[in-house]
């Protein structure tokens, strides 16, 4: 059944969940002026790799990533997919840990971390257990419920902006960021949530071109996530903040609303999207592990996975270690971001060649 719309919504929603927290401050660390440049570069990279990835997948009908790589032999498949599995698990640990920390910083200062992490893991574990089609439907429902709130907050967040902070648009030596650490860190929002496309093929079909077109919706959103705090505070102030977007939303004063701090709703709306993201990644990880251990029921794998992630998150001591872990994960991230799509594409091309030769 064609589920293009659901896939698009899922992509947008999971990206939304990731982009408003750590990303703005990473971009502001990357450059002082011309923030659009690293954003655009990051986005174009993302677009190119998504295009490659989906193209590669399109060569195979109803095969998921594992099937595709298995056509090249068991060793190659293991070699290619093992780092991916590690990456997925690490993403889960980092996301759960980082978001619980954000919630304690911003919202529930007295609640112990483990309690929040337990919540942030229980619900995704349940979501992951219900299976991919159900995840998509959950995504749709959440989008219908929470996207209006999120869009409303984004719209009103222009309340305190000063357009003069847009300038200067560019300075001469502003291309040096590509190899810098914050830039590589900032790429994370693009990497996490398109890889799942490779795992949904057996049950869900989608229109590749429509997805690529729809992914342009992300660009303005990503730009807003950086530019709204920038236009509200200016680079000098905004770069000092841990979560610039949150504070920018915090400054909005709407007198006719019944609620005072709408950041709460915005932030937590995002957290629900993150739960969905974690659920999705857990499901993908589950698929990978299940292939290695076909005897064990997928429900149990997911449950064990949840527990492992919970335990691992408990071991991360402080915010600094989160950042360090985040940085270490960059290697895997770049691998997952570039090598996997490339390999998929190559496998696809090879299959197409074989087909051309054999008949």
């Amino acid at each position, binding site marked *: 059944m064609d589920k293009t*719309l659901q896939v698009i919504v899922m992509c947008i929603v999971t990206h939304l969940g990731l982009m408003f927290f750590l990303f703005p401050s990473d971009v502001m660390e990357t450059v002082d002026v011309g923030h659009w440049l690293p954003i655009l570069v990051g986005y174009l990279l993302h677009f190119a790799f998504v295009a490659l990835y989906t193209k590669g997948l399109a060569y195979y009908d109803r095969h998921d990533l594992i099937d595709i790589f298995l056509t090249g032999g068991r060793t190659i498949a293991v070699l290619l997919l093992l780092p991916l599995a590690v990456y997925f698990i690490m993403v889960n640990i980092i996301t759960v840990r980082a978001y619980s920390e954000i*919630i304690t910083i911003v*919202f*529930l200062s007295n*609640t112990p971390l483990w*309690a*929040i992490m337990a*919540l942030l893991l229980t*619900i995704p574990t*349940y*979501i992951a257990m*219900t*299976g991919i*089609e*159900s*995840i*998509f*439907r*959950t995504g*749709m*429902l*959440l989008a219908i*419920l*929470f996207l209006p709130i999120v869009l409303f907050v984004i719209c009103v967040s222009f309340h305190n902006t000063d357009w003069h902070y847009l300038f200067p648009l560019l300075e001469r030596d502003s291309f040096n960021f590509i190899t810098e650490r914050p830039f590589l860190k900032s790429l994370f929002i693009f990497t996490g949530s398109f890889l799942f496309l490779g795992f949904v093929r057996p049950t869900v079909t989608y229109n590749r071109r429509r997805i690529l077109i729809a992914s342009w919706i992300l660009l303005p959103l990503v730009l807003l996530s950086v530019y709204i705090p920038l236009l509200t505070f200016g680079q000098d102030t905004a770069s000092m903040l841990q979560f610039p977007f949150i504070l920018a939303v915090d400054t909005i004063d709407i007198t006719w*609303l*019944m*609620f*005072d*701090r709408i950041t*709460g*709703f915005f932030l*937590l*709306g995002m*957290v*629900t999207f993150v*739960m*969905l993201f974690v*659920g999705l990644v857990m499901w993908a990880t589950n698929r990978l592990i299940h292939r290695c251990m076909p005897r064990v029921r997928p429900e149990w794998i997911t449950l064990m996975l949840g527990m492992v992630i919970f335990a691992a998150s408990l071991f991360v001591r402080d915010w600094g270690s989160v950042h360090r872990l985040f940085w270490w994960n960059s290697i895997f991230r770049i691998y997952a971001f570039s090598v996997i799509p490339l390999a998929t594409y190559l496998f696809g091309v090879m299959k197409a060649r074989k087909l051309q030769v054999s008949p």
Partner: protein
Amino acid sequence: MPLLHELKLRFASDDDIFFQPDHILHIPVVFIGLTSLLDLIQTKERLTKDAFAKQGLAADDAGLLRQLGESIDTGDLRSAVTSLLSGKMIVFHKPSETFIAVEAASKPLTRSVEEPSDESVIHGPRSAFNEDIDTNLGMVKRQLNSDKLAVKSYAVGANSRTRINLLYLENQVEPALLTAIIGRFESNKELDVCNLQQLSRMLGLPSWAAISPYIRTELPQDTVHYLMRGKAVLLLDRFPCALVLPNDLWSMLAVQNDLNYPRLFTLSFRLLRLAGVLCHILAPGLYVAVVSVNPEILRIEMALTVAQSRLGVPYPALVETLILLFVLEMVMEASVRLPKSIGPTITMVGGIILGQAVVSAKLVSNLLIIILAAATIANFTISGFVNSISIRLFKYVILLLAAFYGILGLLSGMVLVCAYVSSVTTFGIPYAQLARKSRG
């Protein structure tokens, strides 16, 4: 006469049966039937008329009698018993040892077609299903004039036979759904179906689901609409509702009668119901979250008012809310049980006396009363009583999470509910299928 004897033995403990020697025209016969189910005098009259009309067609007496109904083999006790239980009369002709089951005038055990009692309709078709399966089927056929309407009839149950009709539109219905239902009916024929839990067991549907797998409706109009959307409809004898399979989320928001209004109103009615759903499941949780975990969300003026209203309330917001919710649920349950004439009393006791007293005794804050009253009203905007029950249950999950995590709990409760709702499927068709698929 083995069959007559066997019948007598079979019904030895049932004084309802009569064996009455009589004549049709000049032929001596014995009428056998159940007094409670048939009207003997009318039946006799009809039989005589019928026999008179057919007098010339048959050569002998037995032949004439055979013209009047279906003959039963002398050894076939089972079909004789079934005929009797379903309200037919058996005519026994002693000389030729013939048993004939004839249609009898039945005693009026069914109410006539009435207005719906559980789903009121404003300015729409008003006839509602009643207990008689044939009447119900007729009403559906009246409403839907189509040669594509297929009816499959089943009689299930080992101890008590229940008639079940399966209705669907040949060109609309999902083939997988149809084969699944028919397969279940064929393989579980021996299970008794006296209530819907048993029906669910027969159909192999999960028995612990918080969302009912059927849509229940007592309106032929709605039934036809669901048929046209490719769903299957079950009619049970002695059950004044049509059961529509599978249920979907949309049925919570949409009533067929909406379409009898201009589009704008249709849309606004449905939006209103959506708001009702959200209000009902979120309002109590929001109160607890805002009052006890995240008061910074409120404007200061509101916060002060809320604090004022809670002054002197002895227990935490969660307990307060739970107590009042419990009372409310009891009022609702009680008013369902009560006869219509005493119903208003409970409204008064529950609403005025209890509500007023509980506030002035400072047991709960008056703001909470307002919120819960609004939430309860919101619950009844949802279409279908069964749907409103499941929503009632979800509220508690969200309430508990909100008490622990505040607004975060509220929203993650929503995620949980959404995930649950999305994971429910009936015969492989998801409950939360939003896109309506039209076939043919």
